[in-house]
């Protein structure tokens, strides 16, 4: 294991104000994730795992604590610069795919490259090749609504890794898929990451899914309650 973690979460605390009450969602979370690792964050619904993922990805700010990705302290990155940071370092996979319905498979997969300013020919070639390796070579022109859940999640995977981010965050990536497709998607995701030496932090409530990781971090009530190396 490489000595320098790619993701460091130091004493993360998150509190929400609900009316007059203050709800504590995350209670002093400390976590290091090392390059090339696949880490599963396992916990029941409402335990705060998605909140932690959002904070780790810079989508939300912690009430207290620090997040460091690849040596960059996220707390110091302004809201307007955060998008650019995410574009460079972070890939995302969601439970509900979050594809843009008006765009076809190829357009969705290469959208990060559009914001990166890559010329059309170059990015389309890259997108075509990537989607082909994911078994979508013949569905490039289809809209998400014309595709199955598994196919949609593949597009979403392609979109997450197309600009070679150092770390990928996945929030219940198989939450909407049947068990066979779940296995397919996870195998595809993890094998692709391994090939490129990328890191994955995956949130799930499913033990089976969590078992795909190198390490399982168990969460409950905003705290880490256990860790298991596979």
């Amino acid at each position, binding site marked *: 294991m490489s000595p320098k973690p790619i993701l460091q979460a130091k004493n993360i605390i998150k509190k929400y104000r609900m009316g007059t009450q203050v709800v504590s969602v995350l209670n002093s979370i400390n976590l290091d994730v090392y390059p090339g690792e696949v880490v599963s964050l396992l916990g029941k619904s409402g335990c705060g795992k998605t909140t932690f993922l*959002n904070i780790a990805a810079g989508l939300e700010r912690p009430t207290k604590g620090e997040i460091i990705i690849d040596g960059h302290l996220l707390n110091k990155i302004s809201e307007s610069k955060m998008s*650019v940071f995410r574009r460079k370092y972070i890939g995302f996979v969601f439970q509900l795919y979050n594809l843009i319905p*008006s765009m076809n498979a190829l357009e969705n997969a290469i959208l990060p490259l559009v914001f990166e300013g890559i*010329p059309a020919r170059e990015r389309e070639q890259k997108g075509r090749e990537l989607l082909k390796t994911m078994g979508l070579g013949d569905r490039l022109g289809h809209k998400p609504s014309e595709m199955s859940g598994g196919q949609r999640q593949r597009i979403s995977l392609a979109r997450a890794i197309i600009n070679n981010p150092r770390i990928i965050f996945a929030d219940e990536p198989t939450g909407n898929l049947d068990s066979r497709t779940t296995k397919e998607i996870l195998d595809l995701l993890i094998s692709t990451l391994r090939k490129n030496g990328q890191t994955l932090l995956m949130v799930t409530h499913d033990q089976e899914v969590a078992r795909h990781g190198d390490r399982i971090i168990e969460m409950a009530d905003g705290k880490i309650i256990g860790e298991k190396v596979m």
Partner: protein
Amino acid sequence: MRKKDLFLMANQNLWRRKARTILTCLGVIIGTASIVVMISLGIGLRISMEQSMAQWGSLNIINVHPGMQWDESGNPTGEEKRMTDETVAELAAIPGVTAVSPQYNIDGEAKLGRKEGYLNIVGLDPAVMGELEFSVEHGRLLAPEDRFAIIAGSQVINNFWDERAARRGGMMMDGPQQQDPAELLDQRIQLTIRNQAGNERKQNFFVVGILDEKNMDRSWQVYASIHDVKRLRDFMMKGANNTGQMGPMAKEVMYSGSGMMVASTVKDSPSRGSRKDDRSNDYDSIMVRAKDVAQTKEVSQELRDRGFNAWSMADSLKDIENVSRTMQAILGGIGGITLFVAALGITNTMVMSIYERTREIGIMKVIGASFADVRSIFLTEAALIGLFGGIIGLGFSYGASQVVNKIGADYIQQGMMMGGPAANISVIPAWLAAFAVVFSIFIGLAAGLYPASRAIKVSPIVAIRNE
């Protein structure tokens, strides 16, 4: 994000909701079209006025008359100015004045061969006629050494008619017949004048030139050297001197082109010959040429400030410019309100679009769209609505402009006997077309500012929540 991608994406987004985009564009189309058509009417009005005025007479000539200026309630506004050689010198010294000529007018019965008619003779300084914008179509201008030579306006020939021929021809000809102005050239015209004592004098004039048809205000007169005219005028005044009475010419009312009645009191000086203010030799008027239209307006104003009775075509031009500017402002304002409403339409559409696309905006932000990207996308969409609306609106404007001109031309041709192509009522110059498109883009951008700032504020977390 590349400009090309930005435009493609914005364009794609717009056409996802065709009906809404078209309706929003329609607002801009109507707004742009109304602004352009309204302004084009103002421009067309001014151009057609300028054209017809240039036909009526030169815009650089100022006619200075004696007599008092009157204010609106009919009271004289200051001392009466006299028209003497000193006046001529004074006027010549005004900056912007390039030529000055004193002027005498006489008229009388005249004969051209067998034809009879009458002549209005204007005596001018032959040396400056060229500078006073006289130009001949046939023959030549007057030379200083010419004696009793005249150049005739293009319509002067129509002052003469052959009585006997007309009688022979019976009732065949009704109304005056148009004759070729060139027929007058090198002809001898005999003028008959009488003085107050009843003496008669006949004087032959030789036509050396015919004026071109450019200036309609000069077409019914003949022009001679002021010295010749002065001699004839002296003869006519003689009787008046002898009798000491005011003759029929003593009180002459001239109708000047500006529509002002000017009482010319040159010749009714009661104490003729007895005192220093003998006015019998005063000029009837003075013709002043200014360098250009702008100078004409200034000189004209200067003359009035000095108490002269000055009038020029350019003065009316100023009024027309004011009217057309006011019209443009009013009409443009109406169009402007329409476009403002259209801008609200764009804002409304864009805000609705943001509500619909909240999730999409959130996703884009999560996968790396910067604030600038999001802002640019929405601003570009709004600007594109402006651009489409502007271009189509401009197209409609050209159509509407042609329709207006077609209808207008029919009316004008019915109402005017004068030939020549009817001026366009609505004119869209290139600058107006460019302005319309640029302005509508600008309107789109301005309308997109608020929605774009809202789009930036969309929280990616809220947008991608799994609900």
